[in-house]
């Protein structure tokens, strides 16, 4: 079959070349519209259910809302974990689905389950909402607005009702959350005295307000010729109109709303705020839809902003763009990798020219390499994978094999053409040359694919990252194999059929002579060489055990996310003052371009903090080196540390998202404590936190459930309430109306909806100490103070209550550096094992380190399976265990170079570098296979007698392809290795370093050690010295 394919290509070379050109053009066009993203979608299918419950405490939210929602969802099909957080006024239930489930189907399951739970929720709770489906990286763009001219309410209105609808209409935008400014509402501020003097209750006021704003359709009249609509317009839309509403009319006495209340425009109770560049402002945070193209959507949003920009000057609004723009990272990363690949390509061309000495042959290799990569991208697109740093990384790693394919064929064709008899047709020579190397190359390629197979089978977050990389690698390798069997022979034939075959460059001849001389000395000491290999392998293995581990490297996004938290109960105003001060300090750091702060939360937003917490987004100036970014990060830490008592974390945005998707926590290590009541868990959490703080490297130790928040406790005296004709519900509603405001109705203006809330005047609801003086009116007209029917006293309430899988949980987190995560996790486990836990209490460890461990173990077990497959494949190829042992024996020394590279560049083993090792395994095995196969070819096909001369000849004939492949791969990856740690090269950089190091030892092994080992161990016959 192989023969037939190559023969057909040589028969119709022009057709093959034309087809290749067509694919080339198609691939180039595809690149202009391909989906680009930072990373593959790494967050598993999940759905977040948010239920607003204004006025309810965390404990009430937990009991009345979170538990029913959890119970409804917990049993649903495909659900893996249900996490929840109940806090004042909000229930958040996060449903994580099992791997592989369709995210749209998962949301449908949640929606169906919710419809059952909705009926059981209290009246004060709003309808549960399933948050929009967003991409893994979620953030698309954050844009800020400030104004010297507009009031905070007007600025908010403009952003909320003018800008937001425009941006939401941009394809790919899933959510636009607005923070800051003032949300307007109309307040019916009831004067309790006037209400009492007229014998009215709050219910009557609420009913009157609802009646004044009702919109009722009038139907239509059908005439013989027409249908005429009846359009009643009877909605009160201004405070003055609402004030005129009649509350009661009896015995000729009319009580208007204005007689008992003031209707005013006021600020709705805030749950969040924003500070832009150190000034109060309004922030709009956009999230991208699941599967949306981040770059294209960002640019579309920016185009929409550009449309609006000209009108901003007249309105007195200042636009602050790029407060957070993840597309910057994609552009930087792709630009960086493209630059690296272009530099690599140039270096490859130079090497090819130097080794081949002929422009035509260089052209053949140079056409086949990019074509293989372009075809790979086309197939990846068909598989639904975007072009991201991982797939591009896979292509970068595959470059070695792709180049090897191109080089081996062209080099062998050249070599065969040089020695072919003049009478032999060139097509025949090309066919023989191609077929000679194809068999071993196919086996070598299959070995590489098998080596990568464990990575292809990885699951979870690690799988989400590395499966696209492995898929890109395997596809590129297989496609390159296909190209080398079709296009390379055709092009070689067309280019060389009538041309003079260039001779081998002189320097290569001299090099081979030198190599042959050195090689002959090695045949006498195979055991010494073997021992040397064993020592090198041992040193490498010992060295490996000293390396620290991290799942993913620190990303140089040029952007930091800072999270701060003050004591629970701290007001928005205080957080704003913190924000203004911290923003000024951060902006004073050279290299910081912009700072924005979002405080608390926004309705329906992705972050669900209380008023005591805030998040800063710090955007750095473009093109900063990794060193400069580290320096800025240290200064950011210094700024935050200068504010005593604040809990703070400095994260990169992607690190934040990855952590959240792993454990629901942004920290690298999370210890979950289960199995007891609130008080016990609190006590254990305190001890866990205290012990974790003792562990060196366990920085930012935090109890993720914050301390208690100040509250005013109202314990209703049922007997007293009954004696005064009041029900607990009436008391609760009166308290809610007074301090939260009872949303009685909405007014619909042209483009906005404004709430109307019935509440008390501000001066009657601003002191926690006078809550007991609240006047209550029973249904029978009784009038008492709240303190007459309840014990009202200052107290402390829970800030939030968390569940995992329906179990009450307290979480303590720490944030060691990525390289320290594994060591710190181990030390924390040891330290916590010393604790005497109360009966029933147990601990669970989650986070980056735990995930890295799990990934490593999964990878190792899959590697075991892959190893068995490789052995079977090699046995099939060589039908001889000795060859298999030789191939596998050559690998550890190759890996030693990679180990040395890791040791010299920080001694941290990331999964990126592990993938590098796997690739190295493939490259080393490939060299060994080709060398052994060529030796076998000489002895079996060409019937040369088994001798060191044959081994030397086989090696000499492989010097050029081995050196070329090593040099081309090394030079192709060199820019990536040099730029390791820079934006976009965080994962590929360590891989490139490992491969570079490994290529050195692998090449030395192939050229100087393998021949001796082949001579000593390939044949059973006694050795025959020359």
């Amino acid at each position, binding site marked *: 079959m192989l023969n037939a394919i190559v023969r057909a290509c040589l028969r119709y070379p022009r057709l093959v070349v034309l087809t290749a050109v067509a694919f080339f053009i198609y691939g180039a066009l595809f690149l202009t519209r391909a989906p680009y993203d930072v990373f593959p979608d790494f967050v598993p299918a999940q759905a977040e259910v948010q239920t607003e419950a204004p006025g309810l405490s965390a404990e009430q939210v937990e009991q009345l809302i979170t538990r029913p929602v959890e119970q409804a969802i917990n049993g649903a099909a495909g659900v893996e974990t249900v996490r929840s957080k109940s806090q004042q006024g909000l229930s958040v239930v996060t449903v994580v689905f099992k791997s592989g489930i369709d995210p749209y189907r998962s949301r449908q399951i949640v929606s169906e389950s919710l419809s059952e739970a909705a009926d059981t929720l209290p009246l004060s709770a709003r309808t549960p909402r399933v948050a929009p489906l967003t991409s893994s990286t979620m953030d698309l763009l954050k844009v800020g607005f400030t104004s010297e001219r507009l009031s905070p309410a007007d600025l908010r209105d403009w952003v909320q009702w003018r800008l937001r609808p425009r941006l939401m209409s941009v394809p790919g935008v899933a959510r636009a959350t607005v923070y800051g400014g003032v949300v307007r509402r109309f307040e019916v501020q009831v004067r309790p005295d006037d209400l009492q003097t007229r014998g009215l209750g709050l219910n009557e006021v609420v009913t009157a307000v609802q009646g004044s704003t009702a919109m009722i359709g009038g139907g239509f009249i059908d005439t013989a010729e027409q249908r005429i609509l009846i359009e009643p317009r009877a909605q009160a839309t201004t405070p003055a109109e609402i004030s005129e509403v009649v509350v009661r009319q009896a015995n000729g006495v009319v009580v208007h709303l204005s007689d008992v209340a003031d209707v005013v425009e006021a600020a709705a109770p805030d749950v969040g705020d924003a500070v832009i560049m150190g000034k109060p402002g309004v922030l709009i945070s956009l999230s991208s839809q699941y599967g949306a193209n981040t770059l294209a959507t960002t640019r579309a949003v920016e185009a929409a902003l550009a449309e609006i920009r000209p009108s901003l000057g007249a309105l007195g609004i200042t636009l602050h763009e790029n407060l957070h723009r993840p597309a910057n990272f994609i552009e930087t990363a792709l630009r960086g990798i493209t630059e690296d690949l272009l530099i690599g390509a140039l270096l490859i061309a130079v090497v090819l020219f130097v080794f081949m000495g002929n422009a035509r042959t260089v052209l053949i290799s140079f056409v086949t390499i990019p074509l293989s990569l372009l075809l790979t991208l086309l197939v990846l697109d068909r598989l639904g994978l975007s072009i991201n740093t991982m797939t591009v990384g896979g292509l970068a790693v595959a470059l070695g094999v792709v180049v090897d394919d191109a080089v081996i064929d062209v080099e062998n064709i050249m070599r065969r053409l040089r020695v072919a008899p003049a009478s032999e047709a060139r097509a025949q020579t090309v066919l023989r040359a191609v077929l000679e190397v194809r068999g071993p190359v196919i086996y070598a390629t299959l070995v590489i694919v098998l080596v990568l197979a464990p990575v292809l089978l990885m699951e979870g977050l690690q799988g989400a990252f590395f499966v696209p990389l492995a898929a890109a690698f395997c596809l590129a390798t297989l496609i390159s194999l296909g190209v080398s069997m079709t296009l390379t022979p055709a092009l070689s034939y067309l280019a060389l059929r009538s041309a003079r075959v260039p001779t081998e460059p002189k320097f290569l001849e001299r090099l081979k002579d030198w190599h042959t001389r050195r090689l002959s000395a090695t045949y006498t000491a195979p055991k010494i060489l073997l021992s040397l290999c064993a020592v090198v392998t041992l040193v490498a293995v010992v060295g490996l055990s000293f390396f620290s581990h991290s799942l993913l490297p620190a990303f140089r996004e040029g952007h930091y996310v800072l999270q701060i938290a003050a*004591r629970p109960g701290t007001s928005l105003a205080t957080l704003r003052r913190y924000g203004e001060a911290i923003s000024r300090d951060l902006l004073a750091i050279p290299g910081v371009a912009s700072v924005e702060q979002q405080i608390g939360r926004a309705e329906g937003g992705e972050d669900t903090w209380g008023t005591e917490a805030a998040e800063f987004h710090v955007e750095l100036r473009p093109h900063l080196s990794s060193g400069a970014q580290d320096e800025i990060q240290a200064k950011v830490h210094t700024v935050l540390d200068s504010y005593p008592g604040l809990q703070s974390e400095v994260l990169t945005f992607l690190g934040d998202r990855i952590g959240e998707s792993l454990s629901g926590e942004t920290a690298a290590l999370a210890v979950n404590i289960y199995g007891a009541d609130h008080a016990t868990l609190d006590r254990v959490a305190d001890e866990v936190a*205290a012990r974790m703080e003792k562990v060196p490297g366990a920085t930012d130790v935090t109890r993720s459930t914050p301390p208690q928040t100040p509250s005013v406790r109202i314990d209703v005296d049922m007997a007293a309430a009954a004696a005064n004709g009041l029900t607990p519900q009436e008391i609760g509603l009166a308290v809610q109306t007074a301090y939260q405001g009872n949303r009685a109705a909405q007014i619909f203006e042209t483009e906005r909806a404004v709430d109307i809330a019935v509440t008390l005047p501000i001066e009657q609801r601003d002191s926690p100490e006078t809550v007991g003086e609240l006047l209550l009116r029973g249904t029978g007209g009784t009038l008492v103070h709240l303190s007459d029917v309840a014990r009202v006293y200052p107290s*402390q309430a829970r800030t939030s209550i968390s569940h995992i899988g329906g179990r009450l949980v307290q979480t303590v987190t720490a944030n060691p550096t990525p390289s320290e995560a594994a060591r710190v996790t181990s030390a924390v486990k040891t330290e916590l094992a010393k604790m005497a836990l109360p009966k029933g209490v147990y601990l669970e460890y989650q986070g980056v380190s735990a995930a890295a461990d799990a990934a490593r173990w999964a990878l190792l077990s899959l590697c075991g399976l892959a190893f068995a497959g490789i052995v079977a494949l090699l046995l099939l190829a060589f039908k001889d265990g000795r060859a298999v042992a030789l191939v596998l024996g050559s690998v550890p020394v190759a890996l030693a170079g990679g180990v040395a590279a890791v040791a010299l560049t920080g001694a941290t083993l990331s999964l990126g570098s592990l993938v590098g090792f796997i690739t190295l395994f493939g490259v080393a095995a490939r060299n060994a296979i080709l060398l052994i196969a060529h030796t076998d070819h000489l002895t079996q096909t060409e019937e040369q007698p088994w001798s060191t001369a044959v081994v030397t000849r086989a090696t000499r004939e492989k010097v050029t392809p081995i050196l070329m492949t090593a040099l081309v791969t090394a030079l192709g990856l060199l820019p990536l290795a040099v730029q390791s740690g820079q934006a976009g090269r965080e994962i590929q950089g360590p891989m490139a370093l490992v491969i570079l190091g490994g290529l050195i030892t692998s090449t030395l092994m192939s050229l100087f050690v393998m021949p001796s080992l082949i001579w000593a161990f390939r044949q059973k016959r006694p050795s025959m010295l020359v």
Partner: protein
Amino acid sequence: MNVRLAVVAACVFLALPLTAGAQAPVKLSSALQKRLGVQTAPLQAGTASADLKGFAKGLDPSPLVALLNDLEAAKATARLSQTEADRTKALQALDNTVSRKVADAAALQALLDNRKVRAFQQRLALEWGPAFPRMGNAGLDQLSRDLVSGEVALLRIDSPSGKNLLGLKTLTLDLPGTGKVLATVIGPARTADPLMRSGGLLAKVSGPQAKYLTPDLTLPATLPVQGGGQGVWIPASALLRAEGRVWVYVTRDNETFIRRPLANSVYTPQGVMVRSGFSVGERVVTVGSAALYTAENPVGGADK
């Protein structure tokens, strides 16, 4: 040795109450205070007048005026009867021109008419409270005239659960369109308001505004709370609620603050009046107490 230990123990025991509310001082540099907008202000002396809201309802004076008229008429009748009884008794004793029977009849009539006066007086006390009979004839007469002429309006004062009514002498009414009107308490009412569970007071308003206080008109009333007294004003913005108590940060020096609990205090719309624990001139933090509390109790530590 034992004596020394006992003395030390006694000193510690005695010192405990003094240090019970004391917290560790918080240091905050002047620069950081400026960045966080921390502000302080000296405490000032003042007098608390905590008011309570109540309700005043205009009463129909007709029954009272009628009662007073009846009382007046009964008094006149009693006076005449008494005069007649005295006269007949004297004549009968002097010359027997009046029979004993007539004299006895006159005496009986006088007694009956006096009893009638007493009955009206008792009715006045029972229906309108004991303060009315104590006004005396002239007072009641004047009241009656003023009620009829509209110079005085009669009110019933109530508060939820009857709070703050005891010992009240005067109160202020919020009369729509007229403003504040001073009312004088006459005395306790004799019937309770079942809806407010209030014993109630009767009060009167004199002057030109009285004519606007028509029967059944209900008005909010401000009842001054007794016992506010002298003390130190603490601005509402200085209060920090934490650990189930109310605190205030007091400056020790420019960069050191101590959290002190609030006790013996009266909350008014104007601020908080404390009678002890704080002194005039002490500087307290009026802006930034939450930041100081965070500095004092770093987040992430053990919960309090």
